[in-house]
């Protein structure tokens, strides 16, 4: 089925380890986003990408790395995981970046626990 998928859905790791969360979309949307969802903070933008090979920082980029070599994939890497990065991570895609339509299509989320 076409759509946006995230993997893994659940991940437990230890402090200092590298973790990569995958995001894949089949709509050929130009824009892709990574948000983290935390109690009391809502959704905060980590990184976004307007097209392949174009990425930009969001509100909370520290400790994260992204790449976008192909339009359909937008992996998020935690190079050295910390406990403060325990969160639910949402990937989203959009044709127009959420401009006038505001419509982002979200994945199911990846719940990451850092021990």
């Amino acid at each position, binding site marked *: 089925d076409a759509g946006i998928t995230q993997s893994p859905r659940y991940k437990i790791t230890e402090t200092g380890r590298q973790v990569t969360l995958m995001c894949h979309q089949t709509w050929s949307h130009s824009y892709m986003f990574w948000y983290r969802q935390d109690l009391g903070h809502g*959704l905060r933008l980590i990184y976004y990408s307007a097209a392949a090979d174009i990425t930009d920082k969001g509100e909370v980029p520290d400790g994260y790395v992204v790449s976008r070599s192909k339009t359909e994939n937008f992996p998020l890497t935690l190079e050295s995981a910390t406990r403060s990065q325990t969160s639910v991570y949402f990937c989203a895609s959009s044709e127009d*970046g959420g401009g006038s339509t505001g*419509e982002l299509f*979200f994945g199911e989320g990846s719940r990451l626990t850092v021990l």
Partner: protein
Amino acid sequence: AQRVTQPEKLLSVFKGAPVELKCNYSYSGSPELFWYVQYSRQRLQLLLRHISRESIKGFTADLNKGETSFHLKKPFAQEEDSAMYYCALSWGYSTLTFGKGTMLLVSP
């Protein structure tokens, strides 16, 4: 800087009661505002956008530029409306800024 404020973390009402989820924004430009909803075990999805002036699932929201508000309203709440609601502001044509969310609980 752009900001979205949802003052209530939790709103609890009885079935059939009116609902108003508050959203205030701070933005120097012309705002584009939206409401997103996340039902239990479902993906976050767009509920409505101010530019459409539409009613979705009985919900409406009016942009009040004077009060910088975009409150979500429904005259008679249903149990299936229980969910997390996020107000969002679009700026720069490339990103949405979300509020912290309000959990709506509708009791029978």
